[in-house]
């Protein structure tokens, strides 16, 4: 897995016009007398660290939000002692998990037991490679873009099956099997709805997909052109993240805690992290695919021309960049808020209902959606990216 990251970044780095952090970093190191190659090598870990940090901060915020919103939904106050409004509560949780004893059950398979959570977490973190926060603000503008995310997220079920099997516990095994079945079933409609977007954008690259939605601000977002795809994608993403109403793999009433039953300490924390990173990532991708990514509802170019400012002035560049980041995060957290709200307002579905929904309903509809998109693209090439 590490070689994967290494190559994705080393070959493709941050590229394009505008802010080019990599070249400025390399230039500044070269002025200290380092060779170009050494400078590039030193640059390599930085984006990875950045991703890790961003993902962690995202998780901390989400956990805090989840606790606070859940409390509000149940008319409680929620965490309030650790920091102002309890903002430090997630940190305290993390610290607790970090120092807890790491228990491996006696008859469990130690190797697979430890490897499982890692396999769940790593692909999710790797997928952050392709999330753009601005025209050039992403780790790597890989050509296969969104396809990389789909293929990486398909590794996760292996980790779940692995930990379910290695725990040597029937609840764990059942949870792992459920998780894998659910993940496989919902991956297909998910990929098909992504395909419809890709067909309109003529590219797999996330940057291209966002660029095509920012001609006319709010009106040109994909959600208007792909309403069905948007709903399907959102449902599938919830299922992939095992969020309610699709949290069958860890349904407490039936399976104790599913594949996490036997886990404690840091290994449990890895699952916990994985599921929240995945939620934030999914929300980010929904905003990228359907809600115009970093785009402001009114295009920044229009605002600049109304204020009669040149678009490539350094100040405007800076404002555009920060607006982009803020917009992406804002949209993503709105979706996270929606997911948390759904958690407290919908009941859990049964496993057969879940599979029926996936195979008999979402799959045909997403196929029809794809066909209709293709037809519309041929009929109205202007509106559907001909």
């Amino acid at each position, binding site marked *: 897995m590490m070689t994967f990251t290494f190559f994705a970044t080393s070959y493709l780095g941050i590229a394009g016009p505008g802010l080019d952090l990599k070249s400025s970093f390399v230039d500044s190191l070269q002025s200290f007398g380092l060779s170009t190659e050494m400078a590039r090598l030193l640059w390599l870990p930085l984006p990875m660290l950045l991703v890790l940090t961003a993902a962690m901060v995202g998780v901390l915020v989400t956990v805090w939000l989840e606790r606070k919103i859940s409390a509000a939904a149940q008319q409680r106050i929620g965490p309030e002692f650790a920091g102002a409004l309890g903002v430090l509560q997630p940190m305290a949780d993390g610290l607790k998990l970090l120092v807890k004893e790491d228990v491996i059950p006696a008859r469990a398979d130690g190797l697979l037991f430890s490897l499982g959570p890692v396999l769940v977490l790593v692909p999710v973190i790797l997928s952050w490679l392709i999330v753009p926060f601005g025209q050039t603000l992403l780790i790597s503008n890989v050509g*296969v873009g969104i396809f990389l995310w789909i293929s990486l997220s398909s590794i996760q079920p292996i980790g779940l099956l692995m930990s379910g099997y290695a725990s040597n516990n029937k609840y764990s095994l059942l949870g792992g099997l459920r998780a894998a079945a659910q993940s496989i079933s919902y991956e297909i409609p998910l990929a098909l709805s992504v395909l419809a977007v890709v067909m309109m954008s003529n590219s797999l690259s996330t940057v291209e997909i966002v660029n095509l939605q920012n001609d006319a601000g709010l009106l040109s977002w994909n959600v208007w052109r792909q309403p069905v795809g948007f709903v399907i994608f959102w449902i599938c993403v919830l299922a992939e993240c095992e969020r309610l109403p699709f949290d069958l793999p860890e349904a407490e009433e039936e399976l104790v805690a599913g594949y996490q039953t036997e886990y404690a300490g840091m290994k449990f924390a890895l699952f916990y992290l994985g599921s929240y990173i995945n939620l934030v990532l999914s929300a980010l991708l929904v905003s990228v695919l359907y809600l115009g990514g970093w785009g402001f509802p009114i295009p920044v170019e229009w605002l600049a021309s109304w204020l009669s400012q040149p678009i490539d002035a350094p100040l405007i560049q800076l404002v555009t960049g920060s607006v982009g980041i803020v917009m992406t995060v804002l949209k993503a957290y709105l979706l996270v808020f929606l997911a948390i709200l759904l958690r407290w307002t919908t009941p859990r579905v049964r496993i057969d209902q879940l599979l029926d929904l996936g195979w008999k309903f979402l799959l045909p509809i997403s196929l029809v959606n794809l066909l209709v998109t293709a037809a519309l693209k041929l009929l109205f090439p202007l509106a559907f990216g001909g």
Partner: protein
Amino acid sequence: MTIATSTELICFLVLSTVIVLGSLGVVLLENIVYSAFMLGGVFMAVAGLYLLLNASFVAAAQVLVYVGAVNVLIIFAIMLVNKREELKPIKGLRLRRIVSGAVCIGLLVLLVRVAIITPWPLPGPIAIGEEATARIGEHLFTDYLLPFELASVLLLMAMIGAIVLARRDVYDSELLAGDDMKEGLIEQTPTPLLVDKSSP
């Protein structure tokens, strides 16, 4: 040797080692679950090799199809039927192992020798990198159109056949009163045509 080429070489060596050892593990390990997980590792390492060849689309497709679908299904199947069963000892197992090992080694020697003495047309075509996705699409809809379309028939038929073989037939006699079962799903009771009369 620059840093780029040496890292490439190191990555190649690491990936190849993973593939070779992993494949041996898949074949030789006694625990079938370990074999299945190792197979996943081998598939990932192969995807890594594709990345080294600058073929990111093929690498992603490899991960999606082989790790995400094929390997998960294999593990799934193993977990569903994982029954601990004492296998009957096979007669002359040691001899069989030696023979099959010798055949495999002979084949390996042959392949290596042929690979060494063949004059390869080097260097091969230049990798087209990011353009590959578009190029694959063009090929699928021009000179590989026929196999591409036929593959859809193949998949359709395989899917239908798998359902036919795997579905649980419902017979009249098994229906309990009050079950809401559609009429069309009830099978007629099968009668094997050729009765095996050789063993009374």
